[in-house]
């Protein structure tokens, strides 16, 4: 029998019986077979002594059951670890930070509380996936669009709490910012509602975010201060039309103007859709649809001369490569952008983007799909990424399958530091990480994607870039071990330059939190002060995002 650290089998059995009395014995899982399904399916530490594993799992169906589980955990000092759908793959999945924790699996709490297509919001429980809510809205013919991340099996609540992002307009892509109101079971078992939810009889829980007084919602994201049991989200009214365009420039130095336009048109709300960058000439980056096509079918074959020029380029540049692009009408840089609204508006927005770009780079090139007014048809034809129109699927998980022509993998990890949103920021990050790979043998030992020949950042978050480097998780424990070490090295190098991870897997959360170290880690110490006040017994998700309760602070793994 697995037990939490420091808990005897007798004590644990008593606690498990108490959990069973609350949820029913069929919803308490302790067998190796069942606990296998709670492992991190993408862990690079799989089968290693330091793999993070649960001692049991318990699956409540209601808020009241969650409250009772938390009270029992306090009584027996049992560490809990809450998951929503457990599909945060690449970021820990359903496995706890602290081995031996009991996973509180909220998947059975899968009720759509409300979708309002007049005020355009939804209130859902943690077990509701993007697929679930999408199908619910379709079935009821509700006139709203969701903002969905790449994988549709994730939880709206869980994704927002882990700072996940989606693909539609900027005011919806940042899933945490798009939330409005939450309900939380505190570590004491007490129930809290934030925003207008704190006012009895309020009808505006999902309409006004701030309520009165300090806004505490952020305390429950990337943290362990409570178990969120309901969340409201603002949704996009179903637009009349969708338009996607592509802006392209021809020369290496045009990158500066391209990024300036990218920022301006998004921050001015002219172009609200996710601007996704690429280099057609370098065969690098690309909108997500292009990447998924590569995952499914392999990379496009380039002319041999072209490939050799790319290989010889430094920091993505050579005069010959640039000339090759000019001669063959292959743009150096591009970004996709999307528009939502009435046909007249999206067409005018697209025209404005073209004008603004042409003002800076007179020979810029533009392409656009025809205006989409039938989303089903556009999805069926698969010529636009479905997620750009709020339709969930699992196409992105072609990454690591045999489809791309490589052997299948056991998962992936993403190193994703926040870098400045500027051309110089992109170039500097490429300079630094390329030099690191050239200089540090460890970084040469592991497979890594999206660094060479040039790394284009993602712009799913407004006002910044995320430079995303990927690592496959393989069958070879030695390579996985080297990958973990390389990842840690990249975290260190990034932090030296002020580039911090926006989100990371539990095995790296302590290190990353330590990089946010201003004034002797004042931020972490603040988190710990709150943690100690709310959770004196340290029962809730110990170690989540580097926040350890007092009783484990000196002994954390």
């Amino acid at each position, binding site marked *: 029998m697995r037990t939490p650290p420091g808990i005897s089998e007798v004590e644990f059995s008593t606690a498990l019986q108490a959990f069973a009395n609350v949820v029913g014995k069929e919803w308490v*899982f302790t067998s190796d077979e*069942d606990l*296998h*399904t*709670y492992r991190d*399916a*993408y862990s690079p530490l799989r089968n290693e002594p330091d793999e993070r594993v649960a001692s049991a*799992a318990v*699956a409540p169906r209601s808020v009241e059951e969650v409250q009772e589980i938390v009270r029992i955990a306090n009584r027996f000092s049992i560490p809990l670890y809450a998951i929503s*759908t457990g*599909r945060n*793959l690449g970021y820990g999945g*359903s496995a706890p930070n602290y081995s031996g924790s009991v996973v509180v*699996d909220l*998947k*059975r709490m899968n009720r759509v509380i409300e979708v309002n297509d007049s005020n355009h919001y939804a209130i859902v429980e943690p077990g509701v996936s993007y*697929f679930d809510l999408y199908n619910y809205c*379709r*079935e009821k013919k509700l006139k709203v669009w969701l903002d969905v991340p790449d994988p*549709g*099996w994730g939880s709206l609540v869980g994704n927002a709490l882990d700072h996940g992002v989606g693909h539609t307009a900027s005011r919806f892509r940042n899933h945490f910012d798009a939330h409005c109101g939450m309900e939380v079971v505190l570590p004491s078992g007490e129930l809290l509602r934030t925003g207008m939810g704190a006012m009895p009889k309020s009808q505006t829980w999902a309409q006004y975010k701030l309520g009165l007084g300090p806004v505490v919602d952020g305390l429950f994201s990337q943290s362990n201060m409570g178990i969120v049991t309901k969340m409201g989200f603002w949704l996009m009214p179903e637009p009349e039309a969708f338009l996607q365009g592509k802006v392209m420039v021809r020369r290496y130095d045009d990158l500066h103007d391209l990024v300036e336009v990218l920022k301006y048109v998004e921050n001015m709300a002219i172009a609200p859709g996710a601007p996704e960058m690429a280099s057609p000439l370098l065969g690098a980056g690309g909108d997500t649809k292009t990447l998924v096509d590569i995952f*499914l*079918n392999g990379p496009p074959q380039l002319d041999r001369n072209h490939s050799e020029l790319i290989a010889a380029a430094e920091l993505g540049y050579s005069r010959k490569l640039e000339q090759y692009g000019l001669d063959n009408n292959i743009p150096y840089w591009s970004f996709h952008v999307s528009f939502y609204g009435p046909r007249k508006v999206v067409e005018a927005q697209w025209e404005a983007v*073209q*004008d603004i770009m*042409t003002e800076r780079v*007179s*020979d*810029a*090139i*533009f*392409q*656009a*799909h*025809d205006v*989409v*007014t*039938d989303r*089903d*048809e*556009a999805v*069926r*034809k*698969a*010529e*636009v990424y479905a997620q750009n129109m709020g339709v969930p*699927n*699992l*196409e992105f*998980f*072609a*990454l*690591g*399958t*045999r*489809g791309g022509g490589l052997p*299948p*993998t*056991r*998962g992936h990890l993403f190193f994703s530091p926040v870098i400045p949103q500027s051309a110089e920021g992109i170039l500097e990050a490429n300079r630094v990480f390329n030099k690191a790979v050239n200089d540090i043998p460890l970084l040469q030992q592991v497979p890594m994607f999206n660094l060479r020949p040039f790394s284009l950042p993602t712009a799913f978050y407004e006002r910044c870039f995320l430079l995303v480097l990927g690592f496959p998780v393989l069958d070879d424990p030695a390579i996985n071990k080297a990958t973990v070490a390389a990842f840690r090295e990249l975290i260190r190098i990034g932090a030296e330059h002020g580039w911090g991870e926006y989100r990371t897997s539990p095995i790296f959360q302590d290190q990353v939190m330590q990089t946010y170290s201003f004034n002797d880690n004042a931020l972490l110490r603040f988190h710990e002060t709150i943690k100690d006040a709310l959770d004196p017994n340290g029962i809730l998700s110990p170690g989540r995002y580097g926040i350890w309760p007092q009783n484990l602070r000196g002994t954390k793994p």
Partner: protein
Amino acid sequence: MKKVLLISILALSLTSCGSRKEAADDQAKETLAPQASAGKQVFDKWCAYCHGKGERFPGTVSLAVKYGEDLPAALEEREDLTPETVSLFVRQGVYSMPPFRKTEITDEELAALGAYLSHTENLADDAEGVVPPELQ
């Protein structure tokens, strides 16, 4: 002079929009039709996003590479699957496909799925299948 290259990829006429919308609605109704077996419903909810018939389903694409002409890539077209094989994959996972928990697919639903994919929903036989090497 501004150079605009407009690519017409998604040209839609209003007439065709209407008929296609109806087709989509019909397809949705079919998916939700009460006559769909319990196993088919489990497949559509949990498996079809990766293992559906078509060219953009990661599981199907991967199995097409793996099996070539030897076996169908889409699971619903396989004749060699047994409930035991299906259960093993669902609960164990394979490569980047994670295992599925009982809070997602209950044992009862898994049995229905196994019967559906082994084409034994109305049969009580115990036909044997092949456990692929990576799970042996």
